[in-house]
């Protein structure tokens, strides 16, 4: 099989140069999604019927439909929707000039928020209710109780799942090229199209993703051992 090794190497550097873009989308989406997901999870654990049903419908929708469809849906509607809003207010803003990465942030945050919400809910649910009651009795405010008592315990339970979601999110960003974001896949695709070297280009992307995902998993393993320390002490 004739593989153009020169091209393979050259494109690999190009793809590596696009890694920050992939990480950028991942990190920003996680930063937006985490507080949102946490809020949704807390609301779902509280009594109150309608809000809870709304959130669970949202979670079901996100989990039940392919992410490609979510991307296509938002990317087909949101730009012209924002444009008509701007026009309605008489603002002189051209929405179509905006960086498409904005839509990537929106899609991946909305998607991840729903998935994280489930993780946080089950993690918070795994903590005994008495912990919250005891901290409230001891005079902590509800915020303090969450900050100092519940979240540190829930985080240890949630970390493996958060790692999974992060890895899936990184893999999911390979679809950002559908929104004309210049991530690893898009860069490889453009480089390949000049000489029809698609195999080499996608091999590069494949290797780059394995490296990035391995690094992230290594980081999460480290974090889990670090945060989970108190558990190990208890077991001894």
């Amino acid at each position, binding site marked *: 099989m004739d593989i153009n090794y020169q091209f393979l190497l050259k494109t690999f550097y190009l793809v590596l140069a696009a890694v920050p873009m992939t990480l950028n989308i991942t990190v920003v989406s996680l930063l937006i999604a985490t507080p949102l997901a946490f809020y949704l999870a807390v609301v779902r654990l509280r009594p109150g019927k309608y809000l809870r049903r709304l959130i669970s419908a949202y979670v079901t*929708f996100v989990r039940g439909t*392919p992410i490609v469809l979510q991307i296509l849906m938002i990317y087909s509607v949101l730009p*012209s929707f924002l444009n*008509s809003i701007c026009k309605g207010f008489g603002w002189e803003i051209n929405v179509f000039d905006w960086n498409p990465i904005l839509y990537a942030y929106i899609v991946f945050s909305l998607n991840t928020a729903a998935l994280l919400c489930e993780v946080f809910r089950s993690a918070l649910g795994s903590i005994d209710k008495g912990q919250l009651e005891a901290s409230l009795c001891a005079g902590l405010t509800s915020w303090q109780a969450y900050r100092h008592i519940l979240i540190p315990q829930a985080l240890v339970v949630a970390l493996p799942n958060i790692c999974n979601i992060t890895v899936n999110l990184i893999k*999911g960003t390979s*679809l950002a090229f559908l929104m004309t974001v210049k991530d690893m896949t898009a860069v490889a695709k453009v480089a390949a199209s000049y000489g029809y070297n698609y195999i080499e280009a*996608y091999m590069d992307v494949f290797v780059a993703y394995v490296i990035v995902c391995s690094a992230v998993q290594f980081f999460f393993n480290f974090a889990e051992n670090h945060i989970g320390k108190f558990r190990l002490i208890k077991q001894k």
Partner: protein
Amino acid sequence: MRPFNPQFILDVLPNLLPFLWVTLAVVAGTIFFGSLLGFLLAWAKASGQPRWRSLANAYTYTIRCTPPIVLLFIIFYGLPKFCLEVFAVNINSYDKIFFVIVTFTLLFAASVSEVMRSAYEAIDRGQYEAAVSIGLTPWQAFYHIVMPQATVVALPNFGNSVINLMKEGSLAYTIGLVDLIGQGQLIIAQHYGAFALETYLALAFMYLLLTLGVEQSFLRLEHAFSQHKKAA
């Protein structure tokens, strides 16, 4: 902006439905071949041979780090070239569904092998030993004693894998397979980009029904398979 037209969601359904079978064929084909490959991988992982085990583990790890779309492109562009030069077989004219099923078989096998391995390990070793000690052959012990119990353990995770497969399968349109989403894109193109949201919403509802359907059927299956537990 063109006003939203809810009626179109219903109007587009008859045009989409004939292509449901393509999506389902991809899923069914992948479940069949993927389970076979997954079974082999799980067997390699559970076997005592370190070489096979580490090979299977490395495979699973690599696949887990690979975005489905990248693997799909590698298979779509690479497999015909590979087959032509190594086996001297020209598969360029094969239907696109072939490449889609190959790709998702590779992906599905990795996740299913983990499901099968953990289910197999969840069954107490004593079950197998007891079965062998009363005179069953190792295969009989596995087939009649261990496997029925492991199936019940594996079912929920297997269902999850199938749902994931169905969602990832929607990427098939990127190499030009006309499945549900491919047909949706064609319909949108026929309307010069209009009715995009309506078409996508119709597709989303179809996928939602499919995933909920799969979830419910696996719950039913699990219930049916665990009947013997109550009797005991």
